[in-house]
């Protein structure tokens, strides 16, 4: 009998497990140390803590950092590239950029070495004409040479393959004839989109990841099968949807942001249930602050991202804006005497001064501690027994207080304000700069520290409020369980609208959607419903940046309908349309989403909560707004539904601390969330 849906998020320190009993609607969570040499071991062990019989598991949905880590640590496989004669260096030449605007420092080492980038005679022109046919025997010879040189994976990439992939397909088939494993990537199979560097980089990173991710998937499959698991194993993709193991092995580049995407997906589900369709997620880590936007219940997607300088992945991903401001961010005065917090960070080792592991420069966490917002005797994470308040205070006094002539408390509050201002800037970046009014949005903090700053961000950005989920530490695992299955495909058109047969274009897009639906069906997962998204990337002739134009495909598509849809999308983006300039269609984009059954978030509501007054553990002196306050410290998880707490107050739970600023009130909603609003 298969009753459980299990979400598993493997992070750097802990593997979080979230189990939903689909029969009773009950949930259970577990946390176990990550096994970074082989994530699959911790995954199976952690799941075993909650579910005794693996045969009862219907699906395991997994957010993985295997691919992400292999990219960041450059631990992918030795790969080769077979390309058009004259173009072996496209990967290394990038788009002629540099890592930093100022300073001219920094170098770039591509993941495929120059000696493993080989050429064959072939050429397709921009209009799709084959200028020089490819010779499969030459391709095979080059493939054998790469094998002899020790390459495990290979990418076939031909110039203008987006316009006509005949040569590339023939070459890929030739390579597959001689290649001893499945690790052959054809660039246009991954991304049939114009722009050679972006396409090649995406396809190369796919080849680079394929052996690592495939082997991991196999170990995972075997390990789970040996414990009796016979359900579906699904992998979270960077676009927030899930895919089958088969797809993940063929297109591992789609797992690059698997972990964070699951977190955003969880936020989306929690917030929608709570009646907050518009939220901004805020994940405060040790060195960075990540924000992403969910508007009208949908997460914003970015068309491409850079994992590192020159490591571009072009595929739809949850859009995450990152700034260098985390708990370990160091506060300092610059040469002009101005207070700066980050991007330099003490990370988690040595970490903040209060950890006592050797850092003596004050950090954001030290400031929170000195101001009484963090409990010095109950540090989160369980690694340390206590935090050293005196050392944190001394460091703040020495590095910030004395030079600015401020008391240690005022200096600590100044560090907080500067850090909050930077976080607010990141929130403005994803909201105001994209035309969204922050007053409609609530902040949703994740992680242990995000909820310390949520109140300040509500004030600084004029947000509607903040929504603190019941378990900010395990949201990503929850996200796995609620993630939908999603497949995206892009195809370059690059023709003026006037020359396009709109009806045929619409029919092609529908055919693509049917193909993607078949891929969904192959995974064998039950869906509540299946949705299709049709979009065009369009622009005025002469422009190079496109706007996304959503299309409704009901009945035959017409040029007029496309032109109208473009006009409204362009006006929404730039506040004006341009007269008399021809329009062009650059790409078609089709997405198919299999909506997985929702579950009732009210299972998070505390069943036997207590009145607020009965949840006060102690009172603590907390500094806010230039004065000390006697603030109650609540046991957050003990608060009953409907209870309200007013700031200043601290709410503690094992995986997070919430600080409620003066002037704010927080109430426990029917789903166990804490809803913070102006009092």
């Amino acid at each position, binding site marked *: 009998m298969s009753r459980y849906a299990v979400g598993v998020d493997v992070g750097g320190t802990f593997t979080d497990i979230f189990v939903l009993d689909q029969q009773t609607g009950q949930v259970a969570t577990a946390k176990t140390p990550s096994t970074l040499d082989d994530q699959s071991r911790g995954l199976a062990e952690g799941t075993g803590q909650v579910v005794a019989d693996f045969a009862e598991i219907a699906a395991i949905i997994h957010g993985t950092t295997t691919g992400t880590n292999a990219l960041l640590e450059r631990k992918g496989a030795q790969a080769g590239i077979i390309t058009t004669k*004259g173009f072996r260096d496209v990967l290394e030449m990038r*788009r*002629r*950029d*540099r890592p930093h605007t100022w300073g*001219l420092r920094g170098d770039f080492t591509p993941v495929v070495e120059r000696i493993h980038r080989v050429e064959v005679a072939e050429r397709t*022109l921009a209009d799709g004409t084959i200028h020089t046919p490819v010779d499969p025997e030459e391709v095979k010879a080059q493939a054998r040479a790469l094998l002899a040189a020790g390459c495990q994976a290979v990418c076939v990439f031909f110039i203008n393959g987006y316009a006509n992939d005949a040569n590339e397909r023939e070459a890929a088939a030739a390579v597959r004839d001689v290649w001893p494993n499945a690790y052959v990537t054809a660039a246009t199979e991954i991304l049939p989109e114009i*722009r050679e560097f972006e396409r090649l980089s995406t396809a190369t990173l796919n080849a680079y990841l394929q052996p690592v991710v495939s082997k991991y998937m196999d170990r995972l499959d075997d390990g789970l099968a040996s414990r009796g698991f016979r359900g579906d194993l699904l992998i979270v993709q960077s676009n927030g949807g899930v895919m089958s193991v088969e797809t993940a092995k063929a297109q591992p580049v789609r797992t690059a942001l698997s972990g964070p995407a699951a977190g955003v997906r969880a936020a989306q589900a929690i917030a929608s249930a709570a009646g907050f369709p518009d939220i901004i997620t805020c994940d405060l880590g040790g060195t960075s602050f990540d924000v992403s936007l969910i508007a009208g219940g949908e997460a914003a997607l970015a068309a491409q991202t850079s994992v590192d300088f020159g490591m571009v992945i072009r595929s739809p991903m949850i859009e995450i804006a990152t700034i260098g401001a985390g708990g370990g961010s160091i506060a300092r005065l610059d040469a002009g005497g*101005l207070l700066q917090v980050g991007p330099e960070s003490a990370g988690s080792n040595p970490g903040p001064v209060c950890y006592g592991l050797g850092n003596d420069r004050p950090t954001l966490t030290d400031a929170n501690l000195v101001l009484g917002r963090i409990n010095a005797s109950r540090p989160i994470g369980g690694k340390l027994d206590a935090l050293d308040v005196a050392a944190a205070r001394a460091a703040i006094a020495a590095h910030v207080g004395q030079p600015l002539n401020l008391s240690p408390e005022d200096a600590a509050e100044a560090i907080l304000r500067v850090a909050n201002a930077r976080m607010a800037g990141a929130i403005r970046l994803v909201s105001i700069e994209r035309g969204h009014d922050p007053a409609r949005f609530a902040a949703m903090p994740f992680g242990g520290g995000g909820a310390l700053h949520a109140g300040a961000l509500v004030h600084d950005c004029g947000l509607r409020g903040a929504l603190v989920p019941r378990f900010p530490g395990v949201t990503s695992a929850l996200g796995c369980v609620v993630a939908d299955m999603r497949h995206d495909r892009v195809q370059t058109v690059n023709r003026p609208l006037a020359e396009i047969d709109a009806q045929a274009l619409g029919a092609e897009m529908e055919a693509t959607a049917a193909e993607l639906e078949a891929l969904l069906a192959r995974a064998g997962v039950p869906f509540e419903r299946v949705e299709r998204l049709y979009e065009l990337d369009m622009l005025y002739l002469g422009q190079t940046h496109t706007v996304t134009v959503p299309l409704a495909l009901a009945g035959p598509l017409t040029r007029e309908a496309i032109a109208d849809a473009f006009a409204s999308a362009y006006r929404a983006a730039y506040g004006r349309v341009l007269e008399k300039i021809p329009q062009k269609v650059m790409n078609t984009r089709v997405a198919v989403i299999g909506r997985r059954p929702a579950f009732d978030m009210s299972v998070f509501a505390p069943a036997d909560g207590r009145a607020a007054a009965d949840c006060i553990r102690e009172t603590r002196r907390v500094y806010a707004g230039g004065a000390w306050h006697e603030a109650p410290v609540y046991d957050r998880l003990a608060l009953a539904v409907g209870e309200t707490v007013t700031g200043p107050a601290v709410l503690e739970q094992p995986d997070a601390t919430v600080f409620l600023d003066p002037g704010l009130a927080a109430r426990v909603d029917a789903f166990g969330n804490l809803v913070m609003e102006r009092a």
Partner: protein
Amino acid sequence: MTRPPETLDRAELDPVTLAILKGRFEQIADEMDATLFRAAFNPIIAEAHDASHGLYDAVTGETLAQGKSGLPIFVGVMAFAVKAVIDRAGEPKDGDVWIFNDPYLGGTHLSDFRLVKPYFWEGKLFCYLASVGHWHDVGGNVPGNYNPVATESFQEGMLIPPVKLYDAGEYRGDIVEILSANSRLPGSLYGDLQGQIGALDLGAQRMDALLAEYGAETCAAAFRALKASAAEIMRSEIRALPDGTVSAEDFLDNDGIVDAPLRIALDMTVEGDRLVLDFSRSSPACAGPVNIARSTTVAACYVALKHVFGDVPANAGVLEPVDVVTDPASLLAVEAPKPVGGYTETILRLIDVVFQAVAQLAPERANACAYGTINALSLAGTRADGRRWVMFSFFGGGHGGHSDGDGLSHGNAPISTATIPPLEILEAAYPVRFTEWALRPGSGGDGAHRGGLGAVYEIELLEEQADLFLFGERGRFPPKGINGGGDAARNRFLHPVGGEMVEPPMTSKLHGAKLKRGERVRLETPGGGGYGDPARRPAEARKRDEEQGYV
């Protein structure tokens, strides 16, 4: 040392508000940049980011804050453009927007159109907002306006003095008609102009929100304090250098008219917390278009110093402790109508000599010279169906080695953050086919840390005929190494003449040669100079260079 009076403002303004406002000002400028990049029509703005936006002082025009993603050279030069408008504006009115491209007033060259808008708050002038962008074609003798044989600015393009595009909110369509009538690509011009207006509108909206939140007095005090802080950062950087005078010189190949080298010479003096950059020994003004206005010289010094001292902000205060000395008769301080279209080449050389001089005082802080030429290549013609086409692009090269490591291969020029358009986009838009797009082995200067590699681009024509123009440099004088590092390979351009591939007489400048269907041109760009004694290059680095074919 005496305290500058501005620090009084700083004492009045709490340091935290100041830090917050600094971020907000920069965000407004960044957002103006982003708006134009997305809306622009021509790839020089949209892809190459040859544009810039900022906030400027209401009285002096000095830079208060500038976007981080715009073209670095504009950070220094825009203050001159705004000052030029202030000098002419008389009593500015709310809703005015000025437009001009006069390079003798606003620096750089005719291709850069500047829009300057007085920003009013509660009925009073508060500051200026400005936008500058490189338009695709502004008339003149050569499509794309890099005319290597211009001897007067009249041959480079139209020159528009500061005039009102909006008069108290009223749009002057007649001005736009004059501009459009003087361009080969009026549609692109119109689209870019609309994008720039949109960026200024957005900047004004964001300023409204900021001033409503913080008040005009606080923001004005923050502007003053940030300027003082920038000056102080620069002073502390200068103090860290040893006192003394060092000299460096480098050469431009020629001016495109007379085939004789032109000297760019620098005598740099550090004295306590002051820095003097004296370019007096440079060549006199020349006949061809590698002259620059003094405003451009000052801006280029800012770019060079910001590469060496990365922490200094984009703010007028940075240049307070710096004296830039030029001889009015030299090619670094010309006035109308001396041609200035090739200003990029001259300022790149100017940055090279600053790097070479800094290397003598503080070897670990400087880079060896980067490739040092933008190679503006223009292929233009008419298609079989009568449509006119102009493919105009800049090409990349290597960066210099430095104390941390080898130079970057195929980077962008130090004056820009431009990316190169994808060759697939170029092939889709123009009747050309690239037959090679590759690194150029052996082009980086040898050294303990090798220079990055330049590139090879070979292009074949797919239409009947095209006209060919090139504006480049470093064909005779290769990018130099520093601290004992070797020079990079020089620039090399080949085109077919009588069945043979030859270099132009001026090496990297060519005007109006013809290319026929199936013929090719080949551009081989310089790498970067080497850093430090080649004998100190580790054996394994040399082995790797050989194995990978980098040398």
